[in-house]
C-alpha cells in the first residue's frame, strides 16, 4: 500500500490536489470557527447552492467560460444578505434555508427548461459532489487557492481582535465604537469568495463539511477561541490529507471520503470531550 501511495505522490495532479486541498481546508476551517460560533453553520451549504443556481443562470445566458462573473457577485450579495441583514421575522438559519432551497430549485429548473451544453451533467456532478474535480486541478487553480489562503490568514491576523469581539458580542462591540458593519461586510465577502472558489475545486458537499466539522470537532476538546482556531486548522488539514490518500488508494469519491474522515474525527473528539477530567 505504501508503494502505491508513493507512486501516486509522484504524479503532478495528485500533488496539486494535495496542495489545494490543504490550503482550502486551512482557509475554510479558520472561517468555520467564526461561522459556527455565530450560528451560521449551514452557510457553506446555502451559499454553494446559491452558487449552483447562479451557475445555471450563466449557462442559460451563454456565459460559460466567464461564469465566475455571474456566480461570484450573486453569491457575495447573498452572503451579505445573510450575514448583514437582521430580520426579526426571518432569522439567520431560516434565511439560509430559504435562499439555499430556492437557489437549488431555480438552478435545476433552469437547466431543465433551457437545456444547455453537453458538459452540464459533468459540471453539476462536479459542483455539487466534487466528483473527481480535486484530482483534475490546473496550476492556476492551485495558485487561486494559495491567494485565497493568504487573504483569509491575513484577515484573521490583522482583524483578530475585531473578529473576536463581533463573533462573541456584536452589540457590545458596536457600543464600544467598533465598526461592526465593516467587519461583517469583510466576513461576508471573504466567506462567499472561499465557498465559491472551493466549490469549484472540491464541490459543495465538501466545502460545507470543511466549514462545519473541524470547528465543531475542535470545540469538543478546546474552550478558548484561539485554541479552537488552531486545533480546527490542524484537524481540518489532517482530515483532508487522510481522506484524500484513502480515496486515492481504495477508489472512493474524494469529497465524500474526506467528509467521512471528518465525521470520524468529530466522533473521536466528541468521545474525548466526554472523558472525565
Amino acid at each position: 500500500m505504501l508503494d502505491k501511495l508513493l507512486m501516486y505522490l509522484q504524479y503532478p495532479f495528485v500533488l496539486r490536489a494535495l496542495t489545494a486541498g490543504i490550503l482550502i481546508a486551512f482557509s475554510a476551517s479558520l472561517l468555520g470557527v467564526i461561522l459556527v460560533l455565530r450560528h451560521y453553520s449551514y452557510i457553506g451549504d446555502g451559499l454553494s447552492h446559491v452558487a449552483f443556481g447562479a451557475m445555471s443562470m450563466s449557462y442559460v445566458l451563454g456565459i460559460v467560460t466567464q461564469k465566475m462573473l455571474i456566480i461570484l457577485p450573486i453569491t457575495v450579495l447573498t452572503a451579505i444578505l445573510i450575514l448583514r441583514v437582521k430580520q426579526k421575522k426571518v432569522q439567520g438559519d431560516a434565511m439560509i434555508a430559504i435562499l439555499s432551497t430556492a437557489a437549488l430549485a431555480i438552478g435545476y429548473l433552469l437547466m431543465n427548461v433551457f437545456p444547455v451544453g453537453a458538459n452540464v451533467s459533468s459540471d453539476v456532478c462536479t459542483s455539487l459532489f466534487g466528483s473527481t474535480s480535486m484530482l483534475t486541478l490546473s496550476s492556476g487553480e492551485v495558485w487561486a487557492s494559495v491567494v485565497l489562503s493568504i487573504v483569509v490568514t491575513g484577515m484573521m491576523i490583522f482583524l483578530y481582535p475585531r473578529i473576536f469581539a463581533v463573533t462573541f458580542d456584536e452589540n457590545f462591540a458596536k457600543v464600544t465604537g467598533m465598526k461592526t458593519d465593516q467587519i461583517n461586510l469583510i466576513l461576508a465577502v471573504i466567506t462567499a469568495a472561499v465557498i465559491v472558489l472551493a466549490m469549484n475545486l472540491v464541490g459543495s458537499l465538501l466545502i460545507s463539511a470543511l466549514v462545519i466539522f473541524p470547528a465543531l470537532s475542535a470545540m469538543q476538546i478546546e474552550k478558548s477561541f484561539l485554541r479552537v482556531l488552531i486545533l480546527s486548522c490542524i484537524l481540518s488539514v489532517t482530515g483532508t490529507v487522510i481522506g484524500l490518500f484513502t480515496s486515492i488508494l481504495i477508489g472512493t469519491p474524494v469529497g465524500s471520503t474526506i467528509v467521512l474522515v471528518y465525521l470520524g474525527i468529530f466522533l473521536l473528539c466528541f468521545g474525548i470531550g466526554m472523558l472525565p477530567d
Partner: protein
Amino acid sequence: MFWHRHVTRLRKGIILCTAVLIGFSIHGITYLSIPKNTQSSYDYDMTQYNKDMRYALTANIMNNPGEYIGKTIKADGTFFSYPEGKDKWRYAVFISDTMGCCSAGIPILMNDDFQRPENGAAITVSGTLEYIEYAGKQQISLQNTVLTVK
C-alpha cells in the same frame, strides 16, 4: 490545576488517536491489497488504477499535455471513431469516472486499414504519448498504438 487537567485530557486523546491510527493501518495492510504499478512495463498502467484515478489521469493528460509527452501508457476505455473528410477517420479512447458523469478522451493514431471496432466498444490500448499537428495546433495523441477489443 488547569494544566494538569488539560495534559490528562490530551494524553487520553493521544492514546485514543494512536489506537485508531494503528487500527486503520492494520485494516489497510490486511484488506487493501492493490496491485503494484511498479511491476508494469508502462509509465502509467491505468488498467491497475481505480476508475476515478483513470479519469483523473486522462483529464490531466489532456489538460497538461507537456507533463506526459514521451510517456508510455496502457488504458481501458470506450472506443470512439468519427469521419474526418472523405476517407479519413479519427479515433479516441474515452475514460469515465466511477459515477460516469465525467469522461475524458485521448486521441489515438491507427492505420486507416485497421479493423475498426463499433463505437462504444470496450477496448484496451497501449502506446506512447506524443504531439501531433492537428488543425494548426499541437495535440497530444497516443502513437504506436496497440488496440485490443475486450
